[in-house]
């Protein structure tokens, strides 16, 4: 349920597959969040590094939490370069209940932003520039300082 791809995501194909995978699961609500690379600051795109072991355990902890509410999470993310106007991230929740789904997609996406071990770089003139000022220190950072 955690899918990593080289380069941009094929959003229509992923959403179609996820929707059809759960078509008989009797979920009443399906909320995907799709993140697309914005053209701003003269960038050609973004590039991503992912540390998979910790991303996987972070995702599995969320999946367990979702299951306690009878919900299901799916997530796709790009590795490497993604040009502007293409998408690098899809998170989705399926739930029997609307309220659970609305609250979970928000909490999941916000925790993803704060905790998922993914590093973002601006692509400018063929160079990869760490997006430091848009990045968030993981909770508990600085213990070695």
């Amino acid at each position, binding site marked *: 349920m955690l899918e990593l791809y080289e380069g941009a995501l094929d959003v229509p194909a992923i959403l179609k597959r996820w929707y059809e995978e759960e078509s008989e699961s009797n979920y009443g609500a399906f909320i995907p969040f799709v993140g697309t690379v914005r053209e701003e600051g003269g960038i050609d795109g973004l590039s991503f*590094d992912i540390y998979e072991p910790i991303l996987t355990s972070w995702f599995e902890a969320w999946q367990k939490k979702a299951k306690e509410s009878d919900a299901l999470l799916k997530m796709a993310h790009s590795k490497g370069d993604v040009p502007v106007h293409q998408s690098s991230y899809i998170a989705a929740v399926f739930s029997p209940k609307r309220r659970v789904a609305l609250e979970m997609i928000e909490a999941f996406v916000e925790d*993803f*932003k*704060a905790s998922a*071990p993914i*590093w*973002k770089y601006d692509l400018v003139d063929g160079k990869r520039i760490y997006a430091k000022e848009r990045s968030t220190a*993981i909770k508990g950072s*600085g213990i070695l300082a």
Partner: protein
Amino acid sequence: MVRVEFLGPISKEPKELDIQNLAELSEKLKEDESLKEWLECSAVAVNDKLVSSKEYPLKDGDKVSLLPPVCGG
């Protein structure tokens, strides 16, 4: 020996160090001036689990990872 890895934008080769806990690791890494800014803002994982105490004990074969500020999505 403990293997120390620097993730994402910290461009450092992994190190093999003979240390007993994270406090010792902190002392060693502080010797490298170029790591100073990263130590202040990085989280630490031991064997791919985030840890929150400098007293965390290390044993032979452990892997320590430094995770600088993140920005997925």
